[in-house]
């Protein structure tokens, strides 16, 4: 038992120093991290993103993702009002990707529709051209 105490006595000053350092480090990380800062900038950015997505037609073309984004922004504002900044930041960050996805889906859908429309027109032109080429020559002279 004495042996252990001796070892303890030798280690104790070091342990104290370690304790002090770790307390200082944890205080620094606590204040240094975004923990204490409200995510005002990212929230404003996400709200701009929602507006851009709306303009891209995301409300109609990706309603589920848009609803998720706006719900999360709403919850983020509530968390911010209650000083739960970490939770607010996470909600804003996930609203941000939600809204990016909504906008990407809307844009993809618009381009896809345009491509399909173009394909249909080209097909129609081709069948028309084929029909014309198959017409007997007499039809033209009959018309004349």
């Amino acid at each position, binding site marked *: 038992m004495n042996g252990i105490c001796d070892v303890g006595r030798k280690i104790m000053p070091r342990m104290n120093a370690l304790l002090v350092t770790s307390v200082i480090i944890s205080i620094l990380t606590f204040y240094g991290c975004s923990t204490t800062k409200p995510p005002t900038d990212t929230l404003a950015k996400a709200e701009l993103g929602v507006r851009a997505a709306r303009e891209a037609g995301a409300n109609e073309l990706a309603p589920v993702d848009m609803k998720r984004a706006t719900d999360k922004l709403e919850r983020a504002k509530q968390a911010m009002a209650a000083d739960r900044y970490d939770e607010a930041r*996470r909600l804003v*960050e*996930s609203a941000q*990707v*939600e809204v*990016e*996805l909504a906008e*990407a*889906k809307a*844009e*993809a859908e618009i*381009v*896809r529709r*345009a*491509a399909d429309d*173009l*394909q249909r027109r*080209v097909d129609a032109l081709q069948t028309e051209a084929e029909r014309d080429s198959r017409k007997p020559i007499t039809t033209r002279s009959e018309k004349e």
Partner: protein
Amino acid sequence: MRLLAVFEGPQRITAALSILAALSIGCGAVLNPALESARDSYQKARQDPMIVRHAAVALDRAGQALQEADRLWTKENNVIEVKHLAYIVERRVEIARVTAQRRLAADEIQQFRSPRP
């Protein structure tokens, strides 16, 4: 990092993540289910030539979020933050997939415009 020099571009991120994963398993760290699911989604997208070709930047953003999640898991064991980042990874992979689909459709339109040889 010299070990990673063999790999180029996006492959390097994959290699780095694989090494990180191998290390975490090797050290006997507990796997986080949300993180592993996110890694799985990312790896699948990485193997999809359409996504790699048409949405490399979007896919890289997913990779960055995954790296950050990995770091938080191995160094800080921060369950809440890792779960959150894993969700971000999943969404970013989805954004990459949709972006690739948009570029593919845009390419189709371009083909109609340019005269065929």
